[in-house]
């Protein structure tokens, strides 16, 4: 019973991060029909941006070693609200980077009518450049956020259930709550607002949307910005829970995010949420002594589900009229 409860808490926390990370993938896929492999690098950048705002400097290696952004102390350090502001700014900056990536890696390909596979490879190239740039600037070290970033919140709630421990980390609660709020907001924006309708129209048929007066290019930029924002915020959430685990730490999440959107159904926003939670829970329920195999379990689950439902959990089968 305690193990079930513990796994459920762990799975929901990490699954909700997978979900908001995968939403960024899904948004771009639903509009352009391509996978943006640079999304993992944007996720990493989000964490680094927020860390820079909260701590102000990187002390160990890299070109900007010792450069202090806030010699008098960071205004983003010391309370939960200050940290939240840093996280939002970090996510906004990630959104801007995603827009730049769209300009550099995707738009030129689209203009030439290139195969989507070329855009995918191009985004992979951008991802590697970003990751290596991070390493040149700040080194390969991991950095942890200061332990008091949420103010005086206790690091964990420890429950004794039937003589066994159940541990709920504060950061897990924050991650889950923030993710759920974000998903609701995004659901509302896409489902109920004019912008959302326009986005859905572009996703459905860019040509027709353009004829109806919708600026397709503008909405592609909005999509990339939203995608980068979500990716960057996911990066911050994960790194507050664990650490800013070096320039490459987004790569594994990139692969996991890909599994999530395939599992949920390519292009399906509710599918990304369900897929994220399913993969998170599947990983959490791998017994502790075998937890090193959790990635293998997640991908094996993906394989089994795709055998049963090739369109993913909430995806729609493509019907071709002949």
């Amino acid at each position, binding site marked *: 019973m305690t193990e079930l409860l513990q796994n459920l808490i*762990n799975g929901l926390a990490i699954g909700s991060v997978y979900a908001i990370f995968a939403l960024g993938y899904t948004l771009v896929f639903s509009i352009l029909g391509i996978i943006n492999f640079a999304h993992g690098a944007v996720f990493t950048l989000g964490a680094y941006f927020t860390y820079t705002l909260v701590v102000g400097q990187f002390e160990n290696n890299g070109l900007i070693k010792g450069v202090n952004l806030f010699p008098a102390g960071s205004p983003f350090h010391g309370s939960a609200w200050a940290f939240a502001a840093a996280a939002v700014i970090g996510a906004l900056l990630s959104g801007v980077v995603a827009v730049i990536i769209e300009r550099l890696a995707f738009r030129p390909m689209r203009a030439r009518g290139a195969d989507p596979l070329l855009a995918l490879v191009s985004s992979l190239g951008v991802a590697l450049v970003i990751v290596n740039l991070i390493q040149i600037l700040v080194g390969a070290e*991991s950095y942890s956020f200061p332990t008091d970033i949420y103010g005086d919140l206790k690091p964990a709630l420890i429950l004794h259930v039937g003589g066994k421990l159940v541990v709920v980390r504060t950061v*897990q609660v924050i991650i889950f709550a923030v993710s759920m709020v974000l998903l609701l907001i995004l659901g509302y924006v896409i489902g109920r607002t004019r912008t959302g309708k326009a986005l859905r129209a572009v996703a459905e048929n860019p040509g027709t949307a353009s004829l109806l007066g919708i600026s397709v290019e503008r909405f592609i930029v909005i999509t990339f910005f939203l995608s980068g924002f979500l990716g960057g915020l996911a990066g911050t959430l994960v790194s507050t829970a664990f*650490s800013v685990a070096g320039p490459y730490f987004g790569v594994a999440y990139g692969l996991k995010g890909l599994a999530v959107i395939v599992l949920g159904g390519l292009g399906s926003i509710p599918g990304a949420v369900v897929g994220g939670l399913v993969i998170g829970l599947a990983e959490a329920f791998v017994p*502790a002594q075998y937890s090193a195999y959790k990635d293998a379990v997640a991908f094996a689950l993906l394989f089994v589900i795709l055998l049963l439902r090739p369109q993913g959990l909430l995806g729609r089968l493509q019907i071709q009229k002949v």
Partner: protein
Amino acid sequence: MRQARPLLALTALALTAAATADKVGTPVPIGIAVAQTSNTALLGQEQVIGARFAEKYINARGGINGTPIRLVFQDTGGDEAGAINAFQNLITKDRVVGIVGPTLSQQAFSADPIADRARVPVLGPSNTAKGIPQIGPYVARVSAPVSVVAPNAVKQALKLDPKIKRVAVLYAQNDAFSTSETGTFQQTAKDQGLTVATVQKFLTTDSDFTTQVTAVLNENVDLVIVSGLANDGGNLVKQLRQLGYKGSIIGGNGLNTSNMFPVCQQYCDGIIIAQAYSPAQPSANNQLFVKEYTAQYKKAPPQFAAQAFTGVQVMVDALKVLDHKKKLGDWELADLRTALNTQILAGKYNTPLGPISFDKDGELQQQSFYVAQIKMKDAKTGSFVFLK
């Protein structure tokens, strides 16, 4: 006939070039194949710093009897393919006399046989897994095997807290050195009469350890032993402490780096670490190395930098002996590589690690080992305090 002359001249030129290409270049090229990218760069960048420092230090003191050395760096990344590629480039393109590298034992098992077949001496700067020197006659290491270093830490932990009875062991199962090290730790724990209550696995790429930590907390252990690398190990320690574990912690060789401080911050405090290198080692050579390194980098040299420095120093000391026999510029490259390998194994060296030599397999013979405990001054700055 007139047309044939330039052709003959070109052919002669090419043959001369081929003949001189087999001679040893000056400055004498020594290959450094370590991880400058990927997750492993965390350790590799310390080795780059140590090797660059060695180049500057040695050349400032006249190099090899007046001939300067030139280090040729090739990035191995964190995987086997990268290490193989780096080794091949150093051997065939850069024509180095010997190689210091790679960073990981896992990479060494794949890349070292290539150097061995090409008869190029290799010195592993941080390969501590079982079986590395046995890869071939051209493979040696300046990094003490875990089987020698790790038991000291367990004994020291018991000295600090004789009441320790139950142990949890955690290790990164995707890393050859960690899996090798954990075997030694588990055996040592049993030999010391301790109960290994739980063994948990993780990956070096993991950052969420809630599952493992909860399992450890439920076992009521007095000691946790972690074999991993700085990122994952630091994170694991942080989460153990955050979730309420109060007992002793031993970190393996992968945690023996100040790069862990920004990860586990004040939670690093108290970790016991077995070391193959300590800045406190009293030899005159080490104290000079520490003084100059600290002056340049504003911190004491970490183990991985010291071992990379030692790797370069051993190559240079062996080359000095060969240069006395016959000037390095007169050697054929292939002959020098073979002679260098023989000389490396024959020599005795005074290095920052203390006095070292090698057995016939290329296994390191090191006299001094150390156990340190991490003391954090605040959330950012800490040091390894030498335990007597």
